[in-house]
């Protein structure tokens, strides 16, 4: 399509649609169409295309049923709730969650490892043993007594078997 037709195409289509006698298309436009068959046929194509597009004009005014705003707000609330869960599925959030979980596991692991190694040290501390001799003696007596009871049970069992 030649430039002078292209430049005035929208004006021409509008004027044709409105059947307007006072169209703002210059005279060269019509003169060119008389001599250029290519432009004339292309123009007819765009004209019928525009007519087809106008078939999408609604033939009546439409208003939503009463309570439309309430239904819109309900939908928004539903989508808002959904979006909290969908946020968990987002790759960025998921990556951050995985990182945070890994750090948490490392921290917990470190805590358990250090707490397990420190307890026996505290229990076998010389300070405790030396700082409370009475308590340690009582502990030795208890273990001796337990040993004696175990021996007595074994002797009883052996005698019963015989």
């Amino acid at each position, binding site marked *: 399509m030649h430039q002078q037709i*292209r430049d005035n195409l929208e*004006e021409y289509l509008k004027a044709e649609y409105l059947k307007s006698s006072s169209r703002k298309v210059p005279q060269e436009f019509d003169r060119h169409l008389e001599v250029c068959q290519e432009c004339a046929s292309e123009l007819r*194509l*765009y004209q019928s*295309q525009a007519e087809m597009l106008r078939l*999408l004009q*609604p033939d009546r*005014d439409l208003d939503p049923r009463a309570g*439309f705003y309430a239904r*819109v707000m309900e939908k928004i609330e539903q989508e808002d709730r959904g979006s909290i869960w969908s946020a968990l599925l987002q790759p960025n959030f998921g990556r951050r969650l995985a990182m945070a979980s890994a750090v948490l596991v490392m921290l917990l692991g470190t805590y358990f490892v250090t707490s397990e190694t420190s307890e026996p040290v505290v229990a076998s501390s010389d300070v405790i043993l030396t700082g409370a001799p009475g308590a340690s003696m009582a502990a030795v007596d208890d273990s001796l007594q337990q040993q004696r009871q175990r021996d007595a049970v074994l002797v009883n069992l052996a005698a019963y078997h015989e």
Partner: protein
Amino acid sequence: MKGLAGVLPFPVSATEPRVKSRVDHRNTEEAALVRRVQARDELAFREIVERYQAKVFSIIFGILRNHNDAEDIAQQVFSKIYFSIKNFDFRSSLLTWIYKITVNECYDYLRKKRVRKLVYESDFSEEDAQRMQNTDTAIDQRPAVDTQLAQRDLVVKLLGKLSPEDRSLLLLKEVEGHSVEELAQMTGMNENTIKVKLFRARQKLVKASQRLKRGPGVM
């Protein structure tokens, strides 16, 4: 142009001087309303819904011709507006933005549902159907109605081959009846850009139509 009264400025007539200056969409009453919605003012959002609901319904019905679908899609449109209005940058008018969202939602719906014969499922009431069966004149008109429906189906399908921007521009021009000057004001682009974009969109539509005529294998 039905249903646009009170929403858009009246079209510029031939006798009036052309409006060349760009509209600053940041300093309008509409922009103030948008800012209130961006600040999560529910009353302002309600105002937007009430102001544009009829327009949104008309656009959807124009494309889909189904009242039940129009309700669902309109809800989806306003929900989208609510969540994405924080990104509205005032480069175009609010109506242009809403128009684009609405048309996109219609095409998303068509894509999801793969509605092939949507025009034949239009919401004719029982009464309409009876009237068409009983009236002689209606019988005479039936082939014309069928042809029109088939053409509508075709044009909806062809528009689906365009980009959302091209599609909205063509619909705003041909269906809503806006002039190039109005489109320039609404979109914030200059008139020449609008003309070039419209011409390219028309060319693409013609090519899509030619491909469709050549056969489905070519599409």
